[in-house]
């Protein structure tokens, strides 16, 4: 699950804005929770943000200094960098409903 999967938007008419969603997933090594989080995120993005998202995975075991920037404590943590405001979702993203609320996608549906 090495870094960035990016897909450019092809259906700009889909909703109010067609901006790119920038998501960053922090993990610490290949733990079951991390792997689960990545696949859950992927699935959610594919179904709700198809083609408009970019996921960046940061492994803190390899880059511990990066944990400061986004104030990461919990692992895994998903940070919505764009669109603003920044939101943080912690956990393995198994609760899809909560992820959607957290990402502010639920209300839009």
């Amino acid at each position, binding site marked *: 699950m090495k870094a960035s999967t990016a897909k450019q938007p092809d259906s700009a008419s889909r909703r109010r804005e067609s901006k790119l969603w920038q998501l960053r997933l922090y993990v610490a090594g290949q733990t079951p929770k991390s792997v689960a989080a990545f696949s859950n995120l992927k699935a959610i993005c594919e179904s709700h943000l198809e083609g408009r998202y970019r996921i960046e995975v940061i492994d803190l075991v390899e880059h511990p200094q990066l944990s400061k920037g986004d104030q990461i404590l919990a692992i895994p943590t998903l940070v919505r960098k764009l669109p603003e405001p920044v939101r943080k979702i912690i*956990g393995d993203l198994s609760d899809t409903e909560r992820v959607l609320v957290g990402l502010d996608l639920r209300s839009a549906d």
Partner: protein
Amino acid sequence: MKRRPPKSASRTRRLPKCPTGIQGLDEITRGGLPRGRPTLVCGGAGCGKTLLAAEFLVHGAVRFGEPGVFMSFEETAAEITSNVASLGFDLADLVRRKKLALDHVYLERSEIHETGEYDLEGLFVRLNHAIDSIGAKRVVLDTLEALFAGLPNETILRAELRRLFRWLKDKGVTAVITAERGREQLTRHGLEEYVSDCVILLDHRVDDQIATRHLRVVKYRGALHGTNEFPFLIGDDGLSVSPISSLGLNHKAPSGRISTGIPRLDAMLGGRGFFRGSSILLTGTPGTGKTSVAACFAQAAAQRGDRVLFFSFEESPNQIIRNMRSIGLRLEPLVENRWLRFHAARPTLCGLELHLSTMFKEVTAFKPAVVIVDPITSLLVAGTDFETKGMVTRMLDFLKSRQITSLVTSLTHSGHALQQSESAMSSLMDAWLLLKDLDGNGERNRALYVLKARGMAHSNQIREFLISDRGIDLVDAYIGPSGVLTGASRVAQAARERAEALASQQDSAGRKRALARKREQLEQQIAGLRSDYEQEAGELRRIDEQVGTRTSVLTAERTELARLRQADAIKVAAPGPRKPVARGAR
């Protein structure tokens, strides 16, 4: 003290300790916090948890060569840096020199959504990174409980905290974890459950509107420690705990003496005044002249070339200088030449701890040889009995350890023979002078006793204490059958004695004169008798002569008669047994 790896250290019999460098705390804990283990510091808001933790790190980095990580969950790095800068700690510099790492962990619950399983590996990674980046031996987590507010799932959090403390131990760092005081337990979220090696409780209590800080080591597994509650100060140089009971008594005792500035008082104290470096208590009711004696002592010391620091809690320096001028003491030139320095403050200005820390600071800065506190009783009202005794002990100890002579005045109230706090304090003192009011004959007079003076032969006599425009003098009080007389009574008594002496003098002169007269009379009598005698003797002689004359006349007459009778002349001339002539002559 060389550090040993924690794994092997845990196997040694004696628990290795990690000195905090905080004044007094290392004494209470007998060496510091348990090395390589977490210590919990809990207390309410504003009682100095963060400061204690910060000082632990700074001393570690500066004095013990142990770099440290400060992980803050509340304040930003900039805030912490500026907070402790007021205590003279330059965190920014330590960070630059890689002796310290500051990490601010920020958690905003509203930004966080929980979606399933997670752990706090991020925190571990961060902490690990910070520790490894500077080779830290000490870690502070301030305040870990912020996590409870920031993270929704307490079950996960607790499990992770347990893992964190385990991890810290394995890492071999000495950690200080701060936590808020809880209502029914030591900490709000029961952190003491996880940190079981050492728990320190801080407390900031307000008694009678005066706030005092206390520190107590609640628990220290595997080591002896002072269990009392110890008052502590936050001064300009950080935290300092005063462990009253564990203070050593091993100051040097100089044998030099210093004059009291009152010659007669010196005489009462074995002729040479107080010992240098001793502590002197001066008690008295209002208006007995405590400040005057203190000022006299101060002037004498300053003139001798000793620096004098005068803490005044009742009068302003100018007022003291003015008042002392009236009894002939010139303090201004001494103040101008910086031999004498006043520090005046209202006792109610701040709590006892702050007063004492100010005093410590002043003493350290001015380096006096003599310190005067006038009066200490003002400070006593700023705290409870027990606290103040502790603080006074600490102050005296501080001064003694620097061989500073201290004179402390204390106000007693008339009626109390010796006030309790005084007698408690007096045991700490080397010399105790008592100033007393003697009331009688419509006037009040001052008297002075030396109640105690350790290590010197001192007078046990009461002295009348006179304050005039030429200064202070002591005179012998009159002690007679009617008790101790002072003032006008003493003067009257002296006059009476003089009159009596004069009278008796006159009396003896009269008696002498009478005696002389008597002797004269006797001599006259003797002379009279002698002349009588001589008269009589003369008469006797005369009689003798007459008798002689008569005999010769008779003889002549008889001879004549015989001749006339024509008796035998020879027979007459040679009388025999028959004397017809003599018979016939008769």
